[in-house]
């Protein structure tokens, strides 16, 4: 109340002030996944990627048999790009739009940037902070793209990169495939973006310098420096920038299977969906010193929803809704779809580039559930949520 009164007294100039980007980085806890945020380091136990890398490297403090089991299951957040130097290569507008509606840029990573709860002005403030200046420059000369394709093949870019719609695909015999499969932390393939997005993401004037010396622009990059002449870099840039791209098929299914006739128990849904995917973020805070993950006690800018998907009773006890009151996880949305189902369906829409107002797709920053998994959840709900 006092803050509101102060705001009124100070007038619109302060009220309209752009959000503080450093405070936003802290609020969204970008440093729990990314290096290079400029924020103080978080303890390893709160750093998703470092924690996962410790498990993969067999250094995590847990029994050997447990670690072996985790390593089998651990497929997400094994590597995440550093934010250091992104301003030297990326377009500011693209960063803003990406924050608002993230796309899956990196086909070799399971997880992608989550759709955070941020406003357009907050996304703009963060984009301005990350990209304070844009390098002036013209797009590459399109007439060089034929030579560029030859260079693309000569330099084996497809050992790491997908280039969807260009007719160039990741080489099946890439020497990095095994490293990626085992989750190696210094694997250049894991973070390699689909080059389809290059022309949208990169500042036109940054592409040739990037090809000539990636680590001079982004010190933490795993992109190797190739011995390219300036002319070759210009040709390769032309290929990346101008080669015609075919429309892509969206991997995310939009079909919806009929509800199952057979009985579906909670035990089955828990085993195949909740415990496999959901409970890492929506867990019981009781077991973890009060920290139930971002989907329960809050985190990554999300308020505490108090949703516990670790047990039948936890799920039945609902979540804290937008009005601050406890609501059922099965309450119908405006379309009449139970909320739990609606968020699973919304994730598919997000993967296709659309966002559904008022519904955040789940699982956050991970691929949508399969048709069969969604069918299972829907059938269980339709059957009255039996144990």
């Amino acid at each position, binding site marked *: 109340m006092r803050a509101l009164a102060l705001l009124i007294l100070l007038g619109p100039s302060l009220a309209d002030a752009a959000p503080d980007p450093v405070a936003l980085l802290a609020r969204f806890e970008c440093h729990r996944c990314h290096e290079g945020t400029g924020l103080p380091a978080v303890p390893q136990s709160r750093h998703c990627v470092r924690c996962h890398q410790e498990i993969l490297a067999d250094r995590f403090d847990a029994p050997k048999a*447990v670690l072996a089991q985790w390593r089998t299951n651990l497929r997400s957040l094994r590597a995440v790009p550093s934010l250091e130097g992104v301003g030297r290569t990326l377009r500011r507008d693209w960063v803003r739009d990406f924050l608002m509606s993230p796309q899956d840029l990196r086909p070799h990573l399971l997880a992608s940037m989550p759709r955070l709860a941020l406003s357009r002005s907050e996304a703009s403030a963060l984009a301005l902070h990350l990209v304070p200046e844009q390098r002036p420059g013209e797009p590459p000369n399109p007439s060089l793209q034929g030579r560029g394709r030859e260079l693309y093949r000569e330099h084996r870019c497809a050992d790491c990169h997908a280039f969807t719609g260009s007719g160039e695909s990741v080489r099946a015999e890439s020497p990095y495939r095994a490293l990626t499969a085992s989750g190696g932390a210094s694997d250049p393939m894991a973070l390699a973006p689909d080059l389809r997005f290059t022309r949208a993401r990169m500042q036109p004037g940054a592409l040739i310098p990037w090809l000539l010396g990636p680590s001079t622009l982004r010190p933490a990059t795993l992109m190797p420096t190739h011995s390219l002449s300036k002319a070759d870099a210009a040709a390769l840039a032309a290929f990346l920038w101008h080669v015609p791209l075919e429309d892509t098929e969206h991997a995310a299914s939009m079909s919806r299977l009929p509800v199952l006739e057979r*009985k579906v128990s909670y035990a089955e849904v828990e085993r195949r969906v909740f415990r496999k995917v959901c*409970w890492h973020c929506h867990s019981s805070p009781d*077991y*973890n010193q009060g920290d139930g993950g971002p989907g329960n006690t809050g985190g990554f800018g999300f308020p505490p929803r108090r949703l516990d998907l670790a047990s039948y009773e936890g799920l039945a*006890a609902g979540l804290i809704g937008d009005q601050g009151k406890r609501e059922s996880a099965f309450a119908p949305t405006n379309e009449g779809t139970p909320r739990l189902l609606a968020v699973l369906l919304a994730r598919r829409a997000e993967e296709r580039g659309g966002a559904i107002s008022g519904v955040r797709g789940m699982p956050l920053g991970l691929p949508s559930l399969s048709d069969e998994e969604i069918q299972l959840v829907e*059938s269980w709900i339709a059957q009255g949520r039996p144990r």
Partner: protein
Amino acid sequence: MTRHQAPLTIVLGLAAFAPSAAFPCGNAVMLETNEAAKLVARAEADLQEGRYQRALSRLHHGDVEVNSQPLQKRIDLVTSTAMLRLGQVTNAAWAFDALSQRHPDDALIATRLAETLSRLGTQAGDTKALSILESLEKRDLVADEHGFLALAKLRDRSGDTEGRDRALTRCRAVAKEASFCSVETKSRSKTKSTPKAVRTYGDGPTS
């Protein structure tokens, strides 16, 4: 800790749960690596399987250090529920009342409290239990079949046969065994619940 939990030999220590040990995917980690969490989880599994005395015994005789307040809530919940299922209704009512005051927004504790009150055999207990459960039912937050059965019995006692049958239908839909959901009464209707393989969600909250 309530006086009923005083015999618990679980020692409140400082080392087992340092705050820095919080993991984002906490349950996945803690339930594999922390002995106190594992013990409580095993007691909860006993409770689910109807081994109430064993659940209590585990918590009373577990030689594990616990210094986590949230975990203590879970221990209290297991203990109180086991007492309730073993027929120690007065003690359970006292324990659940204390728990619900500490956690007023917890629908599971509210369900258990109401279930306990409904078994006290008092008019005041019935009235309060009915009020709690009907509020939860309206919001589709009744935690489990025990809550629905308690609601059915309360409504039966108050002559609300339609409401009783509605609660029994939900109870049968939720329970592992439909036979769990029975109310001894002469006016009992023949309502049965069968799984519906249609895209409707009509077995949800009372609307």
